[in-house]
């Protein structure tokens, strides 16, 4: 079933891709092939392979339980918040929180999670910023 849904999704993707390719504005100074041809070839391959996937599905993969699935979504959301918060609150604070969260979700006790978070954050800051001179996000406190 998963492969049928996946194939159907791929088919829609290829149709959308092809439609978007037809929308590309041609420049008056174009080569013979133009900017549309290659994307259209790709869309065709994408469509055919999706169709084959949908018609000849593989055995069902083992999907995680709903709870585990929520776990992954939650982690992705935390990462997105991290990416957005990085320029606002600075590297060290944001990273400490994000790393502590991940460590906690992978089964650390709260105290250990905090230690991993702070350790990762400060460790990366010292090695990559202070020692190697990589520029990291600066927060209102300068780190």
């Amino acid at each position, binding site marked *: 079933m998963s492969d049928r849904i996946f194939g159907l999704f791929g088919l829609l993707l290829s149709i959308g891709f092809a439609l978007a390719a037809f929308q590309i504005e041609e420049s008056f100074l174009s080569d013979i092939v133009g900017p549309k041809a*290659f994307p259209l070839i790709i869309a065709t391959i994408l469509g055919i392979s999706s169709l084959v996937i949908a018609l000849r599905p593989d055995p069902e993969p083992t999907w995680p339980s709903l709870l585990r699935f929520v776990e992954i979504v939650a982690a992705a959301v935390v990462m997105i918040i991290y990416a957005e918060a990085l320029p606002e609150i600075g590297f060290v604070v944001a990273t400490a929180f994000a790393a502590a969260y991940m460590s906690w979700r992978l089964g650390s006790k709260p105290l250990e999670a905090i230690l991993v978070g702070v350790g990762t954050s400060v460790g990366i800051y010292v090695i990559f910023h202070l020692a190697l001179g*990589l*520029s990291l996000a600066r927060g209102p406190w300068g780190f």
Partner: protein
Amino acid sequence: MDTFASLADGFAIALTWQNLALALLGCFLGTIMGALPGLGPSNGVAILIPLAFTLGLGATPSLILLTSVYYGAMYGGRISSILLNIPGDEPAMMTCLDGHPMALKGQPGEALSLSGIASFVGAFFATWGLILLAPQLVKIALLFGPAEYFALFTLAFMTLGGVSSTNQAKSAFAAALGLGLATIGVDTQTGVPRFTFGEVHLYDGLDFLVAIVGLFALSEVFIFLENRHGGSDADATKIKIGKLYPPMSMIKQTTPTMLRTSVLGFLAGVLPGAGASLGSFISYSMEKRLVDKEGTFGKGDPRGVAAPEAGNNAAAGGALVPMLALGVPGSGTTAVLLAVLLSLNITPGPLLFTQNPDVVWGLIAALFIANFMLLALNIPMVGIFTRVLMIPSRVLMPIVAMVSFVGIYGISGSSFDLLVMIGFGVMGWVLRKLDVPLVPVILGTLLGNSMENNLRRAISIDNGDWFTLIDTPLALTLWAIGIIGFIIPLFIGGKVKKQMHEKRDEEGSISD
């Protein structure tokens, strides 16, 4: 003689303090990454690229650092295979078969040092193979026009799926997805924006480094979260090594095996789409058929340890040949190394050998040096690396994720790229669940633009005649190889893959 003169120049470049230090650092980090389940050669190199890049290293030093990591990971993978029966990365899968039984028999030290020697032999001969074969391939590649290049790229995609995936439709899907992603951004020939939907950040196209780190490194973090695998599989009793050096008789017994499998592994590595996993697999299978008369393979036969290790290290060297000489990588990790070259504005392929000989020969010399360093690191000091296995993944994985973020942020300093990377991470997780191979996606995003440019150039030269693509014997040959490479796995691929993946670990690293 020309070759030796170039090689001598290469040593002159590689033997600076900075390059030696980078090679040592790369070997050390690579062995650790190879040893840790969950970090393999491709994602290990992937998270280091942005760092090498932002630290302002030049082309040769960056390549020395990252290929040392690559060679190192090939060495390191065997450590957890032997001690824990868990492959540290996919190419080390076959080493479990005889390595772990040897450890159980009370010979873990012998198994580790023997496999270290086998790795050295494999990598050493493969580096010589690289020196001898790559310039010959360059001579052929110089005859290529745009039509032949387009056929060559197609060949790479068609053969890539044969080994890395169980379903050809899925590898075709992956390749098309990658190529489609590469078309996002301003068209290089006419300057019109494509698939940007008005988003200014997309005008430059998607940065393939962002895609690589997301697909390879972040998706691994999601896999670990899904299984909530937070512990470490090692405990102090399992990592006792004991005697460190194998008896001379054992080395003597395994020497023919190592030599045979080095050649075989190298050839497997040169083939497009094969990579190190296949190298170790066919080395082990062939050796089993050839010398296993008493049925000792699988029960801790030293030859069964030497064969896959020599094979996978030789294949790692072999896989560098098409990457450097043609600009078409045949495996996941060499695709990542190609990304390094492209982000340093160096176009691999035949011209690399004439225009940047310092890069090529410096790299090759560094590979020799790194190989000796790895031998030294991996036999007397293997104890350091076995301790690394005790780090639980609830500590390791947050570090991997954060270093990935730091690297990408260091390049662009924009949150947008981080969001794209998270998107690729989630996509990578879904694709891995559905058994869609990730390597064609990466290769597609890397090669998409140059594939399209070659297509358009070829057809423009011939005034819009599409048949120009199959006009020359050379192009026709390439198309034929590609089509055969795509069709054969449909018939015999299932069987080989089933054998190969019998020992596959759920949480093992991404296919190389």
